[in-house]
């Protein structure tokens, strides 16, 4: 078989997996929120509510697609696709496991994997900025201004927090980093880096308590106030896929990827990976059910005055320790 057919097949499988898991992440979130709030959550659409995501998606697809008169038509229509495509593109290089020979299960194995992921996710935020701006309306504009500020303050801290991992692993390829964690998962030596990463990851994906970009009770629906139907759905998908991405990264970079803890290799590596990702997803939902939203300016000062100095210190400390040990 020519190589591109294999890539196509791999991509198709992966796309299916990611779409399914994002759809059910949404359902599980609604269920978990329900349980935390003493109620059952969706349970009428299909058995146990399992068809709820399908119904939501089909409904959004069939909903009228409005474009406000004041909007910039091209950018307005393009923006959701920017968010969506970049959200999915990341999965081209995320490995989910390894064959016994050590080759990673991924569509492509890139040397500078982590850098590529950071680059792609940075583009994703343009979807939000442009979408808000191009709507030609005031609340979306405020939302996109917030997202711009949030992007600048949090990408930096996130990048810094990852460099510690790179120093320890000595490589930027994702499967290299996972292999480096066979003995010790990096969240132990890089605990500060891990905490910073988790915090910034929540901010990056605009999830509660950092959901300022769409802060429902302040900005109505934030940057996507004017979007309806399919395009609104695309933003929705992008948000959940991003959530999945940062959970995958957390598992890969700090929790040993598909490495089994305590030598419990009876469960295959892929399953371990899924369990770890699921744990982080649950963590996000838990946060959403518990915490109030931060204020916009506090978020900025928290990013600049706390996270970035802390990440820098962590980086310097790691570098010194690694250099000393040789």
């Amino acid at each position, binding site marked *: 078989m020519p190589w591109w057919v294999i890539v196509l097949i791999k991509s198709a499988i992966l796309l299916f997996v990611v779409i399914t898991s994002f759809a059910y992440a949404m359902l599980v979130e609604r269920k978990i929120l329900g349980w935390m709030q003493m*109620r059952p959550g969706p349970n009428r659409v299909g058995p146990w509510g399992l068809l709820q995501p399908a119904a939501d998606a089909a409904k959004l697809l069939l909903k009228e697609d409005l474009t406000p008169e004041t909007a910039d038509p091209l950018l307005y229509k393009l923006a959701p696709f920017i968010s969506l495509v970049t959200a999915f593109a990341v999965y081209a290089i995320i490995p989910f496991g390894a064959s016994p020979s050590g080759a990673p299960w991924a569509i492509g194995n890139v040397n500078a994997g982590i850098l590529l992921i950071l680059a792609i996710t940075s583009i994703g935020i343009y979807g939000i900025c442009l979408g808000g701006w191009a709507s030609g309306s005031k609340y979306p504009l405020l939302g996109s201004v917030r997202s711009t500020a949030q992007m600048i303050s949090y990408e930096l801290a996130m990048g810094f927090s990852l460099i510690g991992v790179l120093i320890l692993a000595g490589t930027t390829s994702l499967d290299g980093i996972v292999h480096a964690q066979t003995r010790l998962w990096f969240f132990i030596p890089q605990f500060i880096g891990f905490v910073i990463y988790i915090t910034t990851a929540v901010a990056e994906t605009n999830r509660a308590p950092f959901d300022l970009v769409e802060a*429902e009770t302040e900005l109505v629906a934030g940057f996507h106030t*004017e979007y*309806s139907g399919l395009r609104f759905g695309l933003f929705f998908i992008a948000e959940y896929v991003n959530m999945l991405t940062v959970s995958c990264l957390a598992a890969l970079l700090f929790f040993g990827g598909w490495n089994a803890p305590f030598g419990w290799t009876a469960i295959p590596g892929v399953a371990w990976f899924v369990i770890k990702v699921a744990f982080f997803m649950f963590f996000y939902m838990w946060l959403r059910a518990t915490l109030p939203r931060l204020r916009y300016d506090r978020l900025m000062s928290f990013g600049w005055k706390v996270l970035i100095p802390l990440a820098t210190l962590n980086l310097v400390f790691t570098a010194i320790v690694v250099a000393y040990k040789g």
Partner: protein
Amino acid sequence: MSVGPGQFMLARLDDVARWAQSSSVWPLTMGLACCAIEMMTVTSAEYDIARLGSEVFRSSPRQADLMIVSGRVAQKMGPVVKRLYDQMADPKWVISMGACASSGGMFDNYAVIQGVDTIIPVDVYVPGCPPTPDGLLYAVNLIQQQIRQGGRGGIVAKA
């Protein structure tokens, strides 16, 4: 009259569409008066509209499917309600919740619009002052039924 394969396919697609629309009715966050409190109560633990997949209250009219007119519509609010309805994307449904929204109720005076159906079309009327959350849940059920059967028009949610 024979039914061609294309027509059959269309009919099935229509069923799927109606099923999807009826299973994912997202209401608009629009509270007017007393009934708005009962509208909030319907999301609470004891009633939990989330079971029907309708707990996703959208604040932006563009993303909402269902407008619950919860309370009396004052003369000053009438144009706003009308505008919100116009801003909603098709397909959209309206529940007129409570006596005031349906008919002006006990406030037959200068200030209240006598029935929100004088300004926007209403699909289901819920009687009560205010209706219990169960009443509203039943109305949402009726809306779902209506979507599946493809009809529009004023139904009264009589218990």
